[in-house]
């Protein structure tokens, strides 16, 4: 029965509609697998098994009624279990953000993306582990313990959406929501061998997402393959009047399961121009990662695409820009955690000391470091030199992409310099951990979409990822290209043995 948990999301939907199995059986299979593997992996911060089974029973009723009169339309994800990163609010379920400062916080409302998943019939399995307030690249910054990489339990799953990536990789959930401020969907997707979509800034509502870097944060999807990612993306995307940064632009119809991009002979990518940026193939890039990415580009060419070099000349500045802007925005966003309206309070005689003690005792080291860095960058006398200059260089990075997308349709690059690193490997040196994000940050600064998917394994059996970066609001193109690749490659179907 547990093998039902390994089905892809689209296969699960198909099986549910045919009546091959019930939503209750499917959800129970995931819960059984979670029960068995969670002690080794620690993907979840909260499980909602009972509520999930109750939702599944309701979905089954609807499915049975539908099978009697199948002319009616069904919610697209009816009966399918999903997991949600613990920085997104689900009403009535604790939302800790991986932090002790929110250890007892129970949101009174749903995030819009959660509301949309529920309206689409999805069943919520639980909340997944994350670096504290999504600040990190390994989940080691979670106050509730590290998540382990299903491919090697001594290694990190990446982060900050490491719980979601590991859960999909280990087939605990067919798909999961994550968030991506500097690579937090794509990097863990790469390290865990799953497909991860970071949509364009403004494409998906952030109402009910706990804010980190507001000019960068986006809600994304982790799934087994591009077709599954597209199905979840279509459900959560679109304008939300409750989020002033969500844009009212039409969503292209992406039904990859119904596309006939079947074989090499069809040349499904004919006419697609792929740009290969020299700035992403630099010293420090693991040789096997480079080989994997270059081989994948050859496969895309065999599918009809053409590849050409492009230049994104300001790439080297993306990391320093990000580590000024994101902490600056975080220092303002995290000012709200003061022990007054939610979270535990460190009691003291004066309000001033309540603030300082609560924050000093409850925030972890990385969060404090970034609040300090951001406060410094915004402080009097340093604002222009640090924050102001970083915003100007951000313009240059954005222009790099605009120029590149005048020549090519999509950019192909590595996601991370190396495959999954060992737990503890970077923990004493924040700067070396920041360098993990060197290839993912530029897309966040420019606001453009990125998609990571597996393109091979290194000698140690660890997944290698590639990312496609597209023009603003060009998610459909990225998903179509990855889908065509996944019709002829089978890396995404490989499962870790745990």
């Amino acid at each position, binding site marked *: 029965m547990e093998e039902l948990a390994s089905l892809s999301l689209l296969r699960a939907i198909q099986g549910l509609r045919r009546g091959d199995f019930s939503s209750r059986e499917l959800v129970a299979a995931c819960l059984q697998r979670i029960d068995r593997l969670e002690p080794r992996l620690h993907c979840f911060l909260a499980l909602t098994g009972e509520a999930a089974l109750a939702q599944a029973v309701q979905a089954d009723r609807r499915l049975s009624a539908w099978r009697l009169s199948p002319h009616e339309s069904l919610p697209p994800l009816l009966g399918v279990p999903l997991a949600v990163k613990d920085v997104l609010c689900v009403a009535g379920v604790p939302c800790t953000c991986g932090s002790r400062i929110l250890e*007892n*916080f*129970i949101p*009174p*409302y749903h995030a819009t993306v959660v509301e949309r998943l529920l309206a689409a019939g999805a069943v919520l399995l639980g909340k997944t582990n994350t670096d504290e307030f999504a600040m990190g690249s390994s989940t080691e910054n979670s106050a509730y313990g590290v998540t382990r990489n299903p491919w090697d339990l001594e290694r990190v799953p990446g982060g900050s959406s490491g719980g979601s990536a590991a859960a999909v990789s280990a087939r605990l959930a067919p798909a999961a929501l994550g968030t991506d401020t500097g690579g937090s969907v794509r990097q863990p997707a790469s390290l865990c061998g799953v497909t991860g979509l970071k949509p364009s*800034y*403004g494409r998906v509502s952030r109402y009910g997402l706990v804010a980190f870097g507001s*000019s960068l944060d986006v809600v994304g999807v982790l799934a087994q393959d591009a077709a599954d990612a597209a199905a979840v993306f279509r459900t959560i995307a679109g304008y939300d*009047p409750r989020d*002033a*940064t969500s*844009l009212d632009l039409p969503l292209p119809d992406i039904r990859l399961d119904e596309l006939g991009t079947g074989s090499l002979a069809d040349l499904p990518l004919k006419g697609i121009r792929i740009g290969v940026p020299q700035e992403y193939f630099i010293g420090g890039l693991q040789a096997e990662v480079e080989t994997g990415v270059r081989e994948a580009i050859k496969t895309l060419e065999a599918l009809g695409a053409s590849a050409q070099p492009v230049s994104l000349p300001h790439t080297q*500045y993306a990391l*320093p*820009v990000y*580590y*000024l802007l994101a902490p600056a925005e975080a220092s303002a966003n995290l*000012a709200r955690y*003061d*022990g*007054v*309206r*939610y*979270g*535990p309070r460190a*009691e*003291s*005689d*004066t*309000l*001033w000391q*309540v*603030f300082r*003690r609560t*924050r*000093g005792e409850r*925030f972890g*080291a990385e969060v*404090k*470091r970034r*609040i*300090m*860095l951001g*406060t*410094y960058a915004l*402080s009097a006398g340093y604002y222009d*030199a640090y924050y102001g*200059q*970083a*915003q*100007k*260089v*951000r*313009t240059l990075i*954005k222009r790099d992409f605009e120029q590149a997308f005048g020549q090519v349709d999509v950019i192909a690059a590595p996601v991370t310099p190396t495959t999954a690193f060992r737990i503890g490997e970077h923990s004493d040196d*924040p*700067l070396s951990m920041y360098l993990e994000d060197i290839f993912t940050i530029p897309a966040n600064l*420019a*606001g453009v979409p990125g998609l990571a998917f597996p393109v091979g394994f290194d000698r140690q059996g660890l997944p290698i990822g590639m990312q496609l970066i597209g023009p*603003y609001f060009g998610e459909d193109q990225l998903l179509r290209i990855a889908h065509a690749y996944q019709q002829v490659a089978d890396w995404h179907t490989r499962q870790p043995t745990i």
Partner: protein
Amino acid sequence: MTLTIAEVEHIASLARLNLTDAEVARFREQLSAILDYVAQLQALDTSDIPPTSSVLPPRSVLRQDEPHPGLALDALLANAPQVEADQFRVPPVLE
């Protein structure tokens, strides 16, 4: 560039963070290293480059000024450490 202990303590005070002496010493070292790293941005001439604060096109996001239901008061107060008379209770602001 190395931050002084006093500078680190000043930033902590602006950020409303109580730090231990060990944290001050560690952050002094780590923040100085990070600031050295980001200093490479100073080498770029950006005198005629406008800043990007958001990638979104500038636009009005005003909605109609019509009342609509918000969250219930008790739901919002339920997470607070101390509540009195439907308000958040805190210690004195002034000593």
